């Protein structure tokens, strides 16, 4: 008798399983979770906090907020950030002041841990939401984040 009930139970559980997949099959049109990625670029919006790459926002006067304090460089576990700095005369106060020459960011070494942005006292660097970072030449991954001719915004102190 257990022979027959085995067969009955077996077929019953198999049909239950088929009903689950069958339900999804019938709702296939609206149920698909696929994102057709390169086609949906226009509507694809990343979350605000998404960590794509480190960027340094510049305002309309080509000014950024980086004072060259190098806290990000210290916080980075991988040596991703390299700040080449210099001392120059501050136009307002006339004192000698540290300022950045180049803010070099090696995207190829970055693990997106967020410690540099966490460490930045002046919010000079932020997370960019661009994630399409593939390039043909890896030297293109070494970027200088401060734009040419940019300078630190007045009133930013470290």
């Amino acid at each position: 008798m257990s022979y027959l009930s085995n067969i009955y139970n077996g077929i019953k559980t198999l049909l239950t399983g088929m009903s689950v997949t069958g339900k999804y099959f019938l709702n296939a049109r609206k149920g698909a979770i696929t994102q057709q990625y390169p086609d949906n670029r226009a509507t694809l919006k990343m979350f605000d906090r998404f960590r794509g790459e480190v960027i340094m926002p510049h305002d309309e006067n080509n000014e950024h907020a980086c004072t060259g304090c190098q806290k990000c460089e210290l916080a980075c576990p991988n040596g991703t950030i390299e700040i080449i700095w210099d001392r120059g005369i501050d136009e307002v106060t006339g004192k000698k002041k540290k300022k950045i020459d180049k803010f070099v960011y090696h995207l190829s070494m970055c693990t997106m841990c967020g410690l540099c942005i966490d460490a930045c006292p002046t919010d000079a660097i932020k997370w960019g939401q661009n994630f399409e970072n593939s390039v043909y030449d890896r030297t293109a991954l070494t970027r200088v984040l401060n734009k040419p001719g940019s300078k630190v915004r007045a009133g930013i102190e470290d």
Partner: protein
Amino acid sequence: MNIALNITQTFQDWLVGFMPEGAASITAMVIVAVIYLMIFAVAGLYLVLLERRVAAWFQLRLGPNRVGFQGLLQTMADALKLVSKELTGTDRADKFLYNLAPYFVIITSLMALGIFPFTQGFQAFDINIGIFFLIAISSIGVIGILLAGWSSNNKFALIGAMRSGVQTISYELSIGLSLLTMVLLTGSLQLSEIVETQKHGWLIVQGHVPAIIAFMIYMIAGTAETNRAPFDMVEAESELGAGFHTEYSGMKFAYFFLAEFINMFIIACIATTVFFGAWLSPFGITESLPWLGVFWFLLKALILVFLMMWFRWTFPRLRIDQLLSLEWKYLLPINLINIMLMAFLVWQKLTIQF
């Protein structure tokens, strides 16, 4: 015997008009073979596409939809790619057997297609031992799989091939016996005569309870025969990588792949012919239009193919010993009892006929 059903014969009659009879029959055979080869190579590719789309719909995906309209050219492109690929192989493989194996598999599956009655008069070869021929030819395919696994010089492939041997030998029995159950009703092995019998109701209706049991057994054994999940022990991608065709690439791999899908179609075609009245329309609604028979035949076959795909994308794989105990402890005894039941039904004339 109604030989006129046969398309080879029709061709031959036409050709006899302008060449000697011997040459005409050979030319007719070659032409029909080439037509069949082309139709079913393309049909096999579209079965692959169907499988991929159906799998995608089961799995909340979209499936291939880029190449051509809704991805209709996807598998064509894949086939082109496979043709252009390098044929690699292993060191110290048995080169002769290694190269022979794919042809065993693909040729036997294409041969079986020749005898299906797609509609009235559209049948390449109406052999009078039709069912027997189908069972015989479908078990030759496994030789190709065994050769492939053995000659590849790869242990994973060998395990896959040995599993395949065990599996096919066992399930061959169930296929044969379940079809034999239905032959009790028709009294003939010839496929065209089996169709004739079904003009009084499809066999699954005529034979009611034992016929339904035979159909279920046939579908289980048929799925096992084609080495598809849940019986895909031969490939078992999570256990053996790719099983017996691990070491094949390019077009040789494509032959195995195509053969799997054509075999699936063959299993569905046999079921259509034997259980569901081949090209006969339900309740004879289009009896006056025999060419619609192709539509009915393909519709029934594709529904059965879909059923096999549904199995594949739902069930986990069995283990090799469970596979054998399912066959020898469950399917075979039930099958034997079922045959007796059917014989009793036929003897007592308890079948349903319209």
